[in-house]
């Protein structure tokens, strides 16, 4: 393959990548370096510490240097080709038609120098993506335009000024999240536990370092013990901790999703967010496997919900470690959406689906009994160890457990429902935390009808179907209805053909 590509067509990543990689490496090994420094200060190690530092430094610089001089990429007709490796040369060829997703990521340093990390995702599984780190803003935009310019598809225009030119398809804003919305949604979580765990971690680490100096450690423990906390102190500390956890949660949400905007151009969705590290994602609509509209009990109280799209790409390990909100193949289409807007967003992504007008079919009423049993049994199992010590209290706990299970079963049953039309299967579920899953029927890879021994006694069965990105289940339908639904799903899925039409 490489022989076919002329030498002058190979493109390079930006030289500043070396610097960025060194910084990234040092950031990643900050704990190791910190320990070395502490050891050096403590007077241990001696000459060996210097050797270790030198090795670390050489490694930090050498690896990015080598990767800069050996990484090339090119677009060869219908393929994106990536060449890497010093001794063992590796060529990765990605057919442009198979690209699922293009992500831009800009860290703080990247933004200082006008650089972008580009990652190109295919459906081939984890580790198959092409990551180009880093390109200049202009190169990255040009690459994205080239990658998406396949077979007559309208080229995406990302520059807002160019979008105003006549005849150029421009990005239509669909939704944005205001700072206020983000803070309100952040306030629904509390990271107090995170703070406590972090604090404990630091304390444990400190004690480990002071391990040799037993006296200091004992002194510290003694000091804490001598405080003799009064109830008032405990309450004040608790409240302060909750408050701090609350502020942290709000700040985290606001920083992660700062300036969140979702836009659409012809057949693609564009998402952009982030205060310090900026993410920009481009997702072809016809690659969307399922659309999830979810909310928690608290979110509903303040009238918000969250929308996520799953597409068959596999987040690289690095990204999911850095940004926990971006795991699996889910793209957040809105982190804080006013509940009344949900129908409009869904209609933007899947035209022809009028969410508020949908009527849902319930499942078999016996489902209430089955979920009642499942809930009280699992809680009772939790209580059994307690019963060993406090039999009376454990027995008393059965009453609230049964009440809770009954309430749960009732609520969950009222919520559970499915809807099938020629193009979509919609499943509504969840008792306290609601979830609405929308599956374009052409995305169904296969479906199955399952019946356990107990289900057979009640004459019910479950339907589950697999899309390119996970499973969707409808439990406890009347058995015969389930068979008919299975047939309908397969018939409709086949009628859609193998080519996805117009985003659906």
């Amino acid at each position, binding site marked *: 393959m490489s022989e076919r590509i002329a030498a002058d067509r190979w493109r390079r990543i930006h030289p500043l990548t070396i610097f960025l990689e060194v910084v990234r490496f040092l950031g990643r090994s900050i704990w190791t370096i910190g320990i070395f420094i502490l050891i050096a200060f403590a007077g241990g190690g001696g000459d060996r510490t210097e050797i270790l530092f030198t090795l670390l430094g050489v490694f930090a610089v050498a690896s990015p240097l080598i990767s800069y001089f050996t990484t090339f990429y090119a677009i060869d007709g219908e393929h994106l080709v990536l060449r890497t490796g010093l001794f063992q040369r590796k060529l990765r060829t990605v057919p442009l038609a198979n690209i699922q997703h293009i992500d831009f990521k800009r860290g703080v340093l990247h933004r200082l120098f006008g650089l972008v990390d580009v990652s190109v995702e295919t*459906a081939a599984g984890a580790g198959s993506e092409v990551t180009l780190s880093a390109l200049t803003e202009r190169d990255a935009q040009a690459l994205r335009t080239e990658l998406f310019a396949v077979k007559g598809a309208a080229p995406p225009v990302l520059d807002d000024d160019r979008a105003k030119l006549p005849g150029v398809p421009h990005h239509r804003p669909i939704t944005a999240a205001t700072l206020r919305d983000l803070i309100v949604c952040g306030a629904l979580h509390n990271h107090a536990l995170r703070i406590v765990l972090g604090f404990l971690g630091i304390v444990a680490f400190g004690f480990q370092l002071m391990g040799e100096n037993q006296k200091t450690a004992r002194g510290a423990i003694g000091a804490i013990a001598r405080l003799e906390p009064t109830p008032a102190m405990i309450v004040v500390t608790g409240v302060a901790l909750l408050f701090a956890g609350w502020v942290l949660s709000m700040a985290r949400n606001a920083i992660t999703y700062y300036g969140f905007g979702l836009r659409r151009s012809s057949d693609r969705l564009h998402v952009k967010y982030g205060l310090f590290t900026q993410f920009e994602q481009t997702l072809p609509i016809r690659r969307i496997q399922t659309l999830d509209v979810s909310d928690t009990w608290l979110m509903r109280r303040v009238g918000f919900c969250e929308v996520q799209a799953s597409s068959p790409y596999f987040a690289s390990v690095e990204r999911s470690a850095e940004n926990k909100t971006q795991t699996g193949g889910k793209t957040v289409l809105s982190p804080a959406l006013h509940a009344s807007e949900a129908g409009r967003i869904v209609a933007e992504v899947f035209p022809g689906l009028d969410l508020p007008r949908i009527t849902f079919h319930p499942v078999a009423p016996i489902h209430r009994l089955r979920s009642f049993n499942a809930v009280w049994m699992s809680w009772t199992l939790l209580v059994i160890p307690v019963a060993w010590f406090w039999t009376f209290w454990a027995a008393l706990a059965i009453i609230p457990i049964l009440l809770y299970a009954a309430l749960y079963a009732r609520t969950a049953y009222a919520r559970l429902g499915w809807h099938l039309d020629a193009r979509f299967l919609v499943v509504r579920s969840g008792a306290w935390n609601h979830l609405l899953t929308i599956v374009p029927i052409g995305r*169904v890879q296969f*479906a199955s009808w399952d019946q356990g*021994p107990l289900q*057979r006694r009640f004459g019910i069965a479950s339907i589950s179907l*697999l899309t390119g990105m996970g499973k969707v289940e409808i439990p406890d339908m009347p058995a015969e209805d389930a068979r008919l639904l*299975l047939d309908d799903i397969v018939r409709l*899925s086949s009628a859609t053909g193998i080519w996805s039409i117009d985003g659906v």
Partner: protein
Amino acid sequence: MIDEVRWERLHPGVRKVWLFSTVVSYLVFLLPATLSTYVLTRSWVWSGVACAGVVGLAILSVALIQRQYEFWSYALRADDLLVRKGIFWRSVLSIPRLRIQHVDVHSGPIDRSLGLVQLSVYTAGAPAAVATIPGLAPHEAESLRTALLATATQAAAEPPPHV
């Protein structure tokens, strides 16, 4: 639509394959189970109980092979391949023909000695085979494979309507 389904049974020889693999897997399990019970309890009585338990399970599994064979069936319909199985937990799997990515025909040493093959069907999105039909005569597998792939190839040959 359901009534029109013509279910095909597996080749009767598949019962021998299942019998063999059941017996072998229980034999592999028997010795460690007995020995570890002896090590833990130091009592030949309990070891005997463990041994008898494993043998009992093996006999039960062997007895269920006939039932399993009776429930195992597949059907090729206009739009999909149906696979029905399970004694206690029953399932009917439906794979739309258009979604089939590739089909594998393979056979292990026991299969080969009985002149049988297995056919696996793969779709996108699933990490492993979606369904494996064991115990097919080679000519059956071949015709099934041809039928399944014909639809896929035909569909892929049509130009996409939108582009």
